[in-house]
């Protein structure tokens, strides 16, 4: 760009802005004050800003004053950076972590009630075994199965089981914590 104004070179054309869409799924872990209305504020922010939450899980932490909210979002659709910055503006949100996929343990639990007539009962029970799932309720025509694992694993289980007649499904949404460092 021709002669610079000083000898200290910063070429304007070399300056880059950070990318906004990451293209992958993100798990956000929020530590929030355990106060009335906090969830409403978070839900309200998402609807107002047009952010879509894929899953949401809320629960207590080791500190009774603090709850943990685990959210999953699609980084191909939402600028995650903007989402976390907006969440940070909520006074009751203490900390937000955008969990690093390979340094995170994430788990979800799901319950499936499946048609299980005598003919296919055996096959379904085999699937359950492969997926390390538990049969938690049995009736004459159906089985209720509990599966725990990553969201992907639960998706796969659902795909396997669906052709047999999925009657009902409930999923918790993922919860996540960071993996311990090797020396800890």
């Amino acid at each position, binding site marked *: *760009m*021709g*002669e*610079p*104004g*000083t000898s*200290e*070179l*910063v*070429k*304007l054309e070399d*300056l*880059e*802005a*950070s990318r*906004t869409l990451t293209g992958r799924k993100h798990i956000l872990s929020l530590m*929030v*004050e355990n106060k*009335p*209305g906090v969830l*409403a*504020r978070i839900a*309200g*922010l998402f609807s*107002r800003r047009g952010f879509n939450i894929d899953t949401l899980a809320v629960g207590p932490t080791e500190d009774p004053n603090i709850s943990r909210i685990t959210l999953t979002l699609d980084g191909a659709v939402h*600028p995650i*950076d*903007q989402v976390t*910055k*907006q969440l*940070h*503006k*909520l*006074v*009751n*949100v*203490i*900390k937000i972590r955008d969990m690093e996929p390979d340094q995170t343990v994430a788990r979800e639990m799901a319950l499936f009630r499946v048609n299980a007539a005598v003919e296919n009962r055996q096959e379904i029970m085999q699937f359950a075994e492969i997926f390390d799932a538990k049969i938690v309720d049995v009736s004459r025509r159906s089985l209720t199965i509990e599966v725990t694992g990553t969201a992907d694993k639960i998706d796969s289980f659902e795909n396997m089981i669906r052709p047999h007649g999925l009657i009902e499904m409930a999923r918790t949404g993922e919860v996540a914590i960071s993996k311990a460092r090797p020396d800890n």
Partner: protein
Amino acid sequence: MRAADAVFEALKAEGVNHVFGIPGGANLPVYDALHDAELDHIQVRHEQGAGHAAEGYAKATGKVGVAFATSGPGATNLVTPIADAMMDSVPTVFITGQVRTDLIGTDGFQEADVTGITMPIVKHSFLVTDPRQIPEYIHAAFHIASTGRPGPVLVDIPQDLVRADVDYEPPTGTPDLPGYKPPLEGNIKQIRLAAKALANARRPVIYGGGGIIHANASEEFREFCTADNFPVTLTLMGLGAFPAPHEQWLGMLGMHGTRTANYAMDEADLIVAVGARFDDRITGKLSEFAPRAKFVHIDVDPAEIGKNVPAHIPIVGDAKDVLAKLNREYRALKADSSRLDDWWKRIREWQTTYPLRYEDTNDSEIKPQFMIEAMYEATGGDAIIASDVGQHQMWAAQYYHFSKPRRWLNSGGLGTMGFGLPAAIGAKVGCPDETVVALCGDGSLIMTAQEMATAAHHDIPVKIFLMNNGHFGMVRQWQELFWDGRYTAVEMGPSPNWPKLAEAFGWKGFQCTDKTELRDAMAATLEADGPALLDVHVTKDENCFPMIPAGNAARDMVG
């Protein structure tokens, strides 16, 4: 003491001298305590007026504005000013009465879930559930409202709790808010990088906004802008942050900004945004906004950075701190100013070719732009002007050359008609020694005209300069330009006899329909004892130009 008395102890500790409000059932205990409190209460005539007055007070003084309202309809009447304060980042605290705790959730008399209703339009809110929280929450509310990016905070207090007995301890230090840590200092590495980028820019523009005023950083801003021969433009909300009559001043930018400012943004290679949020009235068509520019973005709110426009050098921090450092770092580089000569040549060409102009009349008709110029002269360019929303607002932004901060009070983000008069009242209460003029549109003024009673009742000598064009002028203009002149619901019909209406409220009322008499009429209005209104009949169908039609690019400016 009664928690209601603790409310006033807390307000006193926060240095509050004035509150604006209206009593009712749910906040009766607070009003009972007000009886003995040492602060001035301005009894407005509608809660919206209380809210805008608190905003006007805050904008003019930089202190937190406070409004009271009762539950239900009192509180819902505050919704518009709360939203307004949120959009324009105005430090305000709203204290509302709520029904008794045993009635909450039962659709009790005058119950409205105000914390719920206002959740998306507050910086934060508190619903008191224990009387001991009352002073704690009030102190937290002031802290949150006034620090970081300022904004409205609501404290909703149930009627039974405010009657309870509490101990009041003045606060020691800042409130305990684990999730609230507004950033203050900018990252020095980023500031250095910005200084170097600037030193290498050939076509820089400094684009300042309301954040400079919130940060009380006009001095630092001017120092920085004059560290070199940088071209400077400001948003509607930033006007006054840089002295308008100045060599480096390009005028306001955006939809009704100058061609020069918009063209400069369009051709800039580096834009330094300071406390400005790239609103769509600035960017127009985002994909064609400043296509050649890299951006340095300085803002105290990290979420503003990268929200609408990518930031190549983001700097999160208070404008006062960042500008002081940026100024120092830039000066140390001793950049060669002459690199900007070509840029200035181009800018001067635009300035000569496209000055702000209007066609004046040869007869007695008063052009609206002429009215603003006359107002500038009559007030010595040094009044606090509180504006309504519409064409008159834009003409004031163009033709009243604000040279100091906190002199231009207007509703930019929400664009709330009816803001002007109550905001002027609030400003006059906060700055009794200043001349305060409400510049009103005839469409806007009638939305909050009842506050003339407030000014008369409390001897608040504000002046109204009414730009009377018999229309919702701004909407009329859009219908003319973009809707094929199919005028619908923009004509005001039989408008009130404004001078008589003013007199009915105990004001002085004046009227002017002749250009040659305008200066005298303005002088008489300003000199009149007490509040006074001047009804100025201007051209009915004048359009405000230049203009970037909504959603277009700077290059598409018309008029």
